């Protein structure tokens, strides 16, 4: 039986960052993931925002993790070399009633410890965002908010963890705990048993089920909340910032945000659903987005859409541990109170991405407090370098790259200018991309106007060639999502 000190369930952003932070210590660490890639669950589809922290109710764990997390992103982005931009964000109020709410929000932010919050006049916000609803009555500006490449963060964390000795097992699904006298000695997975003393539950949407397998918190439940988004063609519309409406009891509302790839996205909707893997988009969702987005930017038009997608938030029903605060839906980041060796990260919905490094930091503290001996490695490399990205290079730099590897000269995705060299590099990367969607998330291939119309066939060919697999085996997002069912009648010998 494989044996580790710590097993992390789930290779989302929380699991991967925890693994990366833990990799500093002399521990044998394993991350198991039921999907074929990192960041495939709730980490795969969110707003990619690093929230300032004026939203969470003061005194909650969410508030603390948000503000602490926010402050960690500059160092993280520097060490792990992913796109992060502290571009600031705005909450725009329409009408007097909403304007008054900005002050409530500002006060809340200040209580949470958010620096630099400022209320802007209607003239000022109109100057900064000229196409904003002209009835805008003012805006809250948070200079510490930012955007990041959410896929890159998870991948970079996983790669860095792996470089520092963490083992990743994909297509491996947690089944149950192996326990004796309320003490964990291993876990059972669909790929066999694994021996370990410590387990970190970072199972995202399924964190409640993992918790229940240990017999803890039967009352805790994750109710998936779906959010649909539309990605706009940058040629039609670009907003160089992040723009929120005034939040309501339903949440932060439908916002516009720029991405590190240069698109503007509108979303998300907010709809509780029953299934934990139903990422369908809907006409109702679109209609809702259309209605909501026009409140902020009346000229916005869904005909600008080049892609739409949906993500699921892992919304939990945990009551805030702070007895002075009346709030349900807080994060759970705690050591299990009855099982030794088990740490839970559960109910990690927004601002989960922002909070993720702070959550990882807290998990380390919880492990230490529970008695795990953590000795720093004599050598630990906190740095990970990104691989070359053709579209960001000058022509001279491109030619230097092509001289070394000619495949960087062949463009496979015209809209986003992704080369064969970049795709091949990802297929052979430490955390390898083995599916079309994995390539897409890493290189941005197929995300442009034609949505894979040109590149899909070529990427499938490249995957088959590089992985030495038949074309029928190449899939979109893991086994069962293959593109090709067979050869044609006259194609006896194949290509």
């Amino acid at each position, binding site marked *: 039986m494989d044996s580790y000190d710590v097993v992390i369930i789930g290779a989302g952003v929380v699991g991967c960052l925890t693994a990366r932070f833990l990799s500093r210590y002399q521990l044998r660490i394993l991350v198991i993931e039921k999907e074929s890639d990192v960041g495939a669950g709730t980490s795969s589809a969110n707003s990619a925002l690093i929230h300032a922290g004026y939203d969470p109710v003061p005194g909650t764990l969410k508030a603390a993790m948000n503000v602490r997390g926010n402050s960690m992103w500059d160092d993280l982005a520097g060490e792990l070399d992913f796109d992060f931009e502290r571009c600031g964000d705005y909450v725009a109020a329409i009408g007097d009633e909403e304007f008054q709410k900005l002050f409530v929000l500002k006060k809340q932010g200040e209580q949470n410890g958010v620096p630099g919050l400022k209320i802007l006049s209607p003239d000022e916000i109109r100057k900064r965002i000229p196409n904003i609803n002209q009835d805008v009555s003012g805006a809250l500006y948070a200079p510490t908010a930012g955007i990041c490449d959410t896929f890159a963060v998870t991948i970079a964390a996983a790669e860095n963890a792996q470089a520092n000795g963490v083992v990743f097992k994909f297509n491996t699904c947690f089944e149950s705990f192996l326990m004796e006298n309320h003490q964990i000695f291993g876990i059972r997975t669909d790929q066999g048993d694994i021996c370990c003393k410590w387990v970190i539950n970072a199972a995202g949407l399924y964190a409640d089920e993992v918790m229940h397998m240990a017999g803890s918190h039967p009352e805790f439940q994750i109710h998936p909340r779906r959010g649909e988004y*539309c990605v706009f063609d940058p*040629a039609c519309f670009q907003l160089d910032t992040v723009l929120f409406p005034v939040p309501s009891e339903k949440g932060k509302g439908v916002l516009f945000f720029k991405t590190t790839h240069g698109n503007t996205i509108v979303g998300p909707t907010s709809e509780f659903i029953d299934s934990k*893997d*139903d*990422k*369908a*988009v*809907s*006409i109702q969702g*679109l209609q809702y987005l259309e209605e909501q987005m026009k409140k902020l930017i009346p000229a916005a038009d*869904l005909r600008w*859409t*080049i*892609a*739409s*997608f949906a993500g699921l938030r892992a919304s939990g029903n945990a009551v805030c541990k702070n007895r002075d605060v009346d709030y349900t839906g807080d994060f759970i980041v705690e050591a299990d109170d009855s099982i030794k060796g088990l740490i839970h990260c559960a109910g990690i919905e927004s601002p989960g991405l922002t909070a993720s490094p702070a959550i990882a930091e807290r998990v380390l503290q919880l492990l230490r407090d529970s008695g795990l001996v953590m000795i720093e490695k004599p050598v630990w490399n906190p740095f990970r370098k990104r691989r070359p990205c053709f579209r960001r290079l000058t*022509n*001279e730099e*491109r*030619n230097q790259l*092509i*001289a070394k590897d*000619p*495949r960087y*000269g*062949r*463009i496979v995705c*015209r*809209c986003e*200018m992704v*080369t064969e060299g970049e795709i091949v590099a990802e297929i052979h990367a430490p955390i390898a991309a083995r599916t079309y969607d994995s390539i897409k998330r890493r290189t941005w291939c197929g995300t442009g*106007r*034609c*949505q*894979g*119309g*040109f590149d*899909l*066939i070529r990427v499938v*060919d490249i995957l088959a060639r590089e992985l030495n697999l038949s*074309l029928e085996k190449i*899939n*979109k*997002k*893991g*086994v*069962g*999502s*293959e*593109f*090709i*069912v*067979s*050869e*044609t*009648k*006259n*194609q006896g010998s*194949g*290509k």
Partner: protein
Amino acid sequence: MIPIHDYDLIVVGSGPAGLAAAVSAKKNGVDSVLIIDRDVEPGGILLQCVHSGFGLETFGEDLPGPSYAQRYIQDAELLHIDFLMDTMVLDVTKDFSVTVSNEKFGIQIFLAKAIVLAMGCRERSRAQIHLSGTRPAGVFTAGTAQRWVNVEGLMPGKNFVILGSGDIGMIMARRLTLEGAHVNRVVEIMPYLNGLSRNYVQCLQDYDIPLFLNHTINNIYGKKRVEAVEIVRVDQNRKVQPETAEIIPCDTVLLSVGLIPENELTRKIGVAMDPITGGAMTDNCFETSSPGIFVAGNVVHVYDLVDYVTHDGTIAGEQAARFIQGHRKIHQKRIPVIAEDSLRYVVPQKICPETLQEAEIQLFMRVSFPMEYPVQIRAYSDQGDIFRKTLPYVRPGEMVSIQIPKTAHDLIQASDAIRLQILRKE
């Protein structure tokens, strides 16, 4: 240093439009012509169109796509036109510099004296039509399936539902049936066919593949691979009628929901664009608002027959030759051509009256909705009626073409604009 090469004419795209333009430029005396294409073989989309129906107008023969392309590739080779294949054009400028990238030599710059843009068109994608449901494998554009089946010899599914009655969708319905797959039906949200009537007869009717007009896919089901679709009827406002929902099991959805001229490079140059066609505004010589930048084929507007593409590509090449040789007057008068009422657009959007002395001018237009009764296309201006043409019917899926006769030269010369309207013939 980035190497620089010189040519007289550079043609971007080796499909039928680019080939025709290059061949005609060379025949009209241009010394050096280079065709650049991102694919490995010249011929463009024709290479995956193994069905027949090409060349009836041009050659009086019924050819498959690759054979049609081959005739022009042969001509191009005989005329010593250079090909630079497997190469992406990154940038084209107003002063005719073309930046390319490929595996062989990386980024290079080519300089020319004129450019013909012939990048063709691309297919509309799922998100552009806001198709609801999950996002599993098995939702492809018809053209993607066509390339897999006809070029790579691969089947992307067994059980198909085709959304949209575009030509490629109908042609693929037949092709897939011949390959042993089951095509459950073709659904079209509009009350009329989107492609050519002949394709409906030859590809759907002849193979008993049902076409459902006023129907659409309301939902796609399946997590990893498509498992089923929900088909619904829509009313005359294209509003879904939920009580008509029907679940059809299938593993693949093909989209044949329209084509969009591929004009990223054109836009970067900064030439005037037509928001309706999605292509550059052009005159009857296929010159854009930027002198010496010509356009040809589906990059201008989506044609329904390759023969017309070739015809217009030939004009573009000939005029590019005249430009290079200094015979084209840059500041000659151009008269706007305006489509009115139920005519959705007209190409070209401008005409040079002088050229009418040499040849008739062909105008292509599309109507907004089918008119299954005799109609008259009327061209007129402030000078009065220019001419009329009667047609037995007009349909959005079938391009309308009219020719302005040489005799109209004086009238057009004196007009401020040519207006086109469509009238019901009493």
